[in-house]
């Protein structure tokens, strides 16, 4: 009888231990005012998709989050499946390249590579760009972000509906719209944050002042 009681106590303690280890979802400040105001920060752990047309500003928005992370010396990984991310362009948004790990996997390995990086727990923010349909990979990513306790910022090729995202944002060149948020807030909208170099309206002029005459002449 005493042994049965001990076993029962042991099992209860084990259950409490497992329940206590449940993942705590929270929102961490992203460092980008527009995102924090819209969704209260980045879900951690969690998946965030940022979709929109190429040239609309998705990468710029993500780059500003990455810049905020690297500014406090936190390493960030960027899985660049299309091999088109241009580091000098990211540096223009304030990304400290010393803390940026770029992964350019060969075709067919992107989902696996992203899963490994997410699960490693080495990065608070992992950006994944240029990946098409991921199928079951989305569920694996969701488990991996929980194990790695990180935020995955995904810039999919399409809308990324097959990803179990906690937050979906749409960027359309002028603003950000919340398409989905597990905490509510559907349809909220905010202006896109300006890139650092846009704060200097004379920059283009200064760069090109000597050349305008050549082109127009």
């Amino acid at each position: 009888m005493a042994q049965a009681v001990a076993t029962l106590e042991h099992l209860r303690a084990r259950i409490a231990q497992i329940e206590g280890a449940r993942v705590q979802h929270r929102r961490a400040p992203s460092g980008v005012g527009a995102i924090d105001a819209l969704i209260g920060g980045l879900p951690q752990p969690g998946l965030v998709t940022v979709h929109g047309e190429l040239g609309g500003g998705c990468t710029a928005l993500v780059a500003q989050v990455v810049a905020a992370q690297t500014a406090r010396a936190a390493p960030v990984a960027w899985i660049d499946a299309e091999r088109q991310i241009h580091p000098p362009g990211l540096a223009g948004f304030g990304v400290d390249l010393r803390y940026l790990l770029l992964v350019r996997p060969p075709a067919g390995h992107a989902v696996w590579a992203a899963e490994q990086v997410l699960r490693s727990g080495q990065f608070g923010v992992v950006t994944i760009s240029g990946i098409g349909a991921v199928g079951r990979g989305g569920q694996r990513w969701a488990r991996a972000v929980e194990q790695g306790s990180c935020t995955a910022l995904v810039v999919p090729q399409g809308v990324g509906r097959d990803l179990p995202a906690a937050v979906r944002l749409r960027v359309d060149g002028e603003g950000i719209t919340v398409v989905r948020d597990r905490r509510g807030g559907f349809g909220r909208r905010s202006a896109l944050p300006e890139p650092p170099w846009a704060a200097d309206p004379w920059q283009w002029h200064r760069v090109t002042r000597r050349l305008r005459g050549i082109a127009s002449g």
Partner: protein
Amino acid sequence: MKHRADLLLFPERLTRSFPAATPSTERGLEASGGPAAGAPSTSPRYLLLYLPAFALERCGYQASQHAVCVAEQQGAARVVSLTPTARHEGVRVGMAVAQARALLPELEVIEHDPLAERADQADLLRCFRHLGERLAPWGPGGLLLEIHRVAHLFGGERSLARQVSDRATALGHVACVVVADDPCAAQALAEWGGEDRLVPPGGGAQALAPLPFASLRPSPPLLAATQALGIERVGEWARFEPASIGGRFGVEGLRLLRLARGEPVTPLPWNEPDPGPVIERVVLGGPTSSLGPILFVLPGTLQRLRQQLLARDAMAVRLAVRLVLDRGAPQVIRVRVGTPSRDPDRLESLIRARLERARLTAPAIELHLEVEEHTAERLWQLGLLERSAAAEPLADLIARLTDTLGDDAVFGAAPRASWIPEQAWVPRPFLPGEPLPAPPLHRKADRDPVAIQRQLEPRPAPPRPTVLLSAPMRVQVQVVAGRPAQLRFEGRWHRLQSVEGPERLEPEWWRLDGPHQRDYWAIRFADRTAWCFCDDRKSWFLHGWFD
């Protein structure tokens, strides 16, 4: 007397003669124990037998055949050894196999097997053991013999060199024999001179002087630095003052300076006997196509490997898992350890992860675990901020990703001073917090006051796109009054919302293979911003997106 009998049996080898001696060489021969010398020389002398195509000759290929030996390097199969005939046709060490085949379609290719090569080299060494005790392998396909105490027993240095050369030829090797005061000097003369040579005592500097500086095998940074200084020949390097070299290039620079001046600097292999490779072999119970039996014997094998590493006080950096198959060549899987370790559990998890992704081409019968690279140092663990207790160390993660994805798939980025947008950055090893290399100062800035002033002025960096296409895409643009007005994209014309530019880039005007000048414009249409350029032929291209 065995070698004498050998020469009598093969009289044609007697015709192989060493080059005619220069006056200085002649003096050297007398001093090193020619016919008149009956006593050993006092200054150290070394004979290097260099076999440039040993890796192929041991597999039965002749020097006259077009054949190369390849190994996987930097994500591609590259040439590590080749026959002199293949070299004559333009094939070089380090060249990708596809490139070599383009030069020589009939090229025969074999896989490099370092273990078997070392075993054959040991066999070759036994053939020369009668020449002296101080005999050791020297690099891949080379043997080094200390001869100053034994040369007089074989008729002097020249006679001894001829005997060694003839014996190597009789064994089917293309050989080059060099006698010098230092093994590294002999190696440089054999590799870059390509002919038998007898350097007199004290004549190393004169012999090395005309060789390229690269023949001394400097590290890549030192080689780049000397190239920047315009130093091309060993003789030019030898003229510098030691204090000047030591202050700029440290210990390595001083060592190479002494070598260039003909001073003996190389540590000798027989002073520290080679302990051999760290390897463990297990014969599996029977041929197996599944991983189960291999994974079963893995922990025990790793424990024994750990004992070997402990005995040498070393940590594994890179492992080779060699599966000897029932038929065909062994299957080799290389595993990077990341943070050096000899912990069997960690090594097992790394090897297991690689084995689970591997596919056996035939049933395996043996498992060999070799530590291909080890270090005595416990390398610095990367700082990981609040994530120091992460499940997998960063170095291990990067090593694992690199193993699977390739050498060029995982990296950090550093800006590079180039006007060409595609070349404005370079990959570099990812070390968080490690300072980025400073952009080189413009050479004119040393003396040109305008250039100095420009460097002091804060200049705004021109905006660059976040997405750069791998190749510019041709587009149609309607130009009005010298500025873009409409863009045809995805099958229809778009009226432009705004246009910024131009930013003229004139990269590498000396290139003949492409447009020299590009006028870049940031073009906004349909709430998207593209980065387009117009080249000097007035053709328009889309090169990136301000995404």
